[in-house]
């Protein structure tokens, strides 16, 4: 990081199915609580970045920069970014670029998605926009279908069993019990996960992250400081279609952004105390652990078979906390900061990707409890 960027405010809505709330209300709720938690006033915000994937097709609403800007009395300049499920982290990445360049000093980043306004069919088609519309979609694939292909190949190559895979979602559900913002705060046994309905063989309903409404916001600043610093913000991309990739069971965008993030933060995997990773489907969590260097190829499941010192998806992850697409990347950073605050540890990491790993963004937070006390 070329500048000292602090995370000075965080806020989010509870994720869930909010029939009574609009996209506007969700954004407002998250922004309000982020501003309330910050040591500055709303008037200090000199730029807004909005992350969203589906508002045009699902909510009939474009022009989200202006939507967010109109919430603040001084209407700061605002823009919207989109990178499918990675929209949230890409928004934070964009904010870092604005802060590093000196174009802004305090940036509000808000990610929001209101998915339950549309039918399941419409959402399925809209989400497929994250894949290649010419190569992947015409054969009738859905997004779970793409990850079904990945999961089948993974199980074939590494001999992962169905009962092992069940452990992933079971752990995420258990973690969500402690998260007041989570969509599903109930325990699920591995047996229940293995017995849920097939969605895209071998993936079952409880392997998949849900359709959710929600918003998350954070405030980043070079002017105001906090003990929570953005130590690294790195993004990387890969071929959009899985047919154009040499391997299915590893995502090079994750590997690449992770390596560059560690270099930028000047730390090692062993320094990381908390990870929030992108488990849009259970198998994705295993691949992410391997690609980030926390496990050897095929060994990611070890993190779910035993208790480990580093926490993985303590929030419940996308599976149990919910996955309002563009809010997720920001929510992960919020959760990592809360976890560092509670544990007093130094480094935490958020891993967020879009599509089948075609865009990946890794953020590392550095916590220095005494530096600004």
């Amino acid at each position, binding site marked *: 990081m070329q500048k000292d960027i602090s995370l000075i405010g965080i806020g989010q809505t509870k994720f869930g199915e909010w029939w009574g709330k609009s996209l506007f209300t969700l954004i407002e709720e998250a922004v309000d609580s982020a501003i309330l938690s910050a040591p500055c006033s709303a008037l200090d915000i000199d730029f807004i970045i909005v992350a969203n994937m589906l508002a045009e*097709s699902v909510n009939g609403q474009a022009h989200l920069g202006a939507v967010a800007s109109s919430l603040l009395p001084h209407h700061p300049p605002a823009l919207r970014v989109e990178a499918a499920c990675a929209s949230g982290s890409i928004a934070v990445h964009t904010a870092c670029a604005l802060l590093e360049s000196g174009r802004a000093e305090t940036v509000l980043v808000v990610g929001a998605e209101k998915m339950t306004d549309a039918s399941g*069919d*419409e959402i*399925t*088609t*809209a989400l*497929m926009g994250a894949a290649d*519309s*010419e*190569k*992947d*979609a*015409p*054969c*009738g*694939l*859905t997004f*779970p*279908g793409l990850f*079904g*292909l*990945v*999961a*089948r*190949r993974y199980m*074939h*190559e590494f001999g992962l069993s169905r009962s092992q895979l069940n452990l992933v979602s079971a752990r995420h559900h258990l973690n969500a019990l402690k998260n007041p913002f989570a969509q599903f705060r109930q325990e699920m046994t591995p047996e229940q996960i293995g017995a849920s*309905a*097939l*969605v*895209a*063989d*071998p*993936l079952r309903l409880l392997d998949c992250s849900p359709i959710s409404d929600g918003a998350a916001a954070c405030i980043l600043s070079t002017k105001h400081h906090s003990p929570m610093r953005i130590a690294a913000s790195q993004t990387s991309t890969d*071929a959009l*279609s*899985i*047919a*154009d990739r*040499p*391997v*299915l069971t590893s995502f*090079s965008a994750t590997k690449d952004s992770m390596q560059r993030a560690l270099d930028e933060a000047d730390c090692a995997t062993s320094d990381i105390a908390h990870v929030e990773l992108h488990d849009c489907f259970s198998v994705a969590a295993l691949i992410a652990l391997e690609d980030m260097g926390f496990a050897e190829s095929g060994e990611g499941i070890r993190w779910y078979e035993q208790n480990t010192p580093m926490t993985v998806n303590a929030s419940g992850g996308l599976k149990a906390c919910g996955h309002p697409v563009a809010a997720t990347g920001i929510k992960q950073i919020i959760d990592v900061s809360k976890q560092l605050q509670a544990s007093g540890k130094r480094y935490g990491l958020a891993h967020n990707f879009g599509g089948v790993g075609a865009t990946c963004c890794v953020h590392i937070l550095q916590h220095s409890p005494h530096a600004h006390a």
Partner: protein
Amino acid sequence: MRTPDSPAVAARSLTRQKARLLPGTLLSFTTVTHPPKGFPDRPRQIGLIELTDGHRVLGALSGSAEPKIGQVVIPRMHLSRVNAEGLRLYEVVYELTERMAETASETKEFPGYILALTGPSGVGKTTVSLLLTKMLSDFTTKVPIVTSRTPKEGDDQEYDYVSTREFERLEKSGALVAWTHLPSESEQRSYGYRKNDIEAIWEQGKLPVVVTEMQLLQGLAGHFGRRSILSFGLLPPGASKRAMLSHLLHRMRARGRETDAQIEERLLNAQADLDYFTRAAHLFDHILVNEDLDSVLKVIKGHVLELSKA
């Protein structure tokens, strides 16, 4: 909202599939319980298939038995569905056969082979090699070029900089497999490849990729034997030599890596290089015209995948 059911989308998809009506091997498969709107509402089996030409495609599978990874599939035209406007939409489906493919395509070994890209300055060797090693990152690695010249802005981490004395020491100790000295009026440069670098890549079961020029290519062929090199010559587009040279001049000016004096000198070298393609044709397996980056990459990728099976 645009759906896969749109006749235009289905037509484009069919055209693409028909252009490549080849048998292949099943890499993975899934059954989508509820396919998207527009498709018949029954579970749909879809596979990721590697065709015999090395391309990968996604397509519906047909056959009554449970598919297996590694199974051979053959393409067939099939009436997929009739859409709301009554249009009959066709697709290529892949029929499962009893046969299993002989080699697993995911593990590739390249014992003793080197991929070489040769061409005049400005033809796009670096770009091609970067994209190729990224596209085939699990099978290929770029070999760093050891050089005695000083780093310049615009260098793409392809060089390993050493002092002139260190270069001489490497050369004398036999650590280099090929080297060249380019004394010139505008700059003094030596380039070479370390034996260790190439051998380390082989040990990982990968294919070393070298971006090279005539002298170094001859050196490599002399050291490892001509047959161990999969050698591609890259030519700039243009019907005549003059057109080719003017193309190179444009590219070098645009990338801004060299001074005007250096560009002039490199153009002179380029003239000699272009002649060399005809004089030393035996050093090249394939000569490609870098007119369209995508097709150049596709051709090279195809040859690399073919090589790994041999």
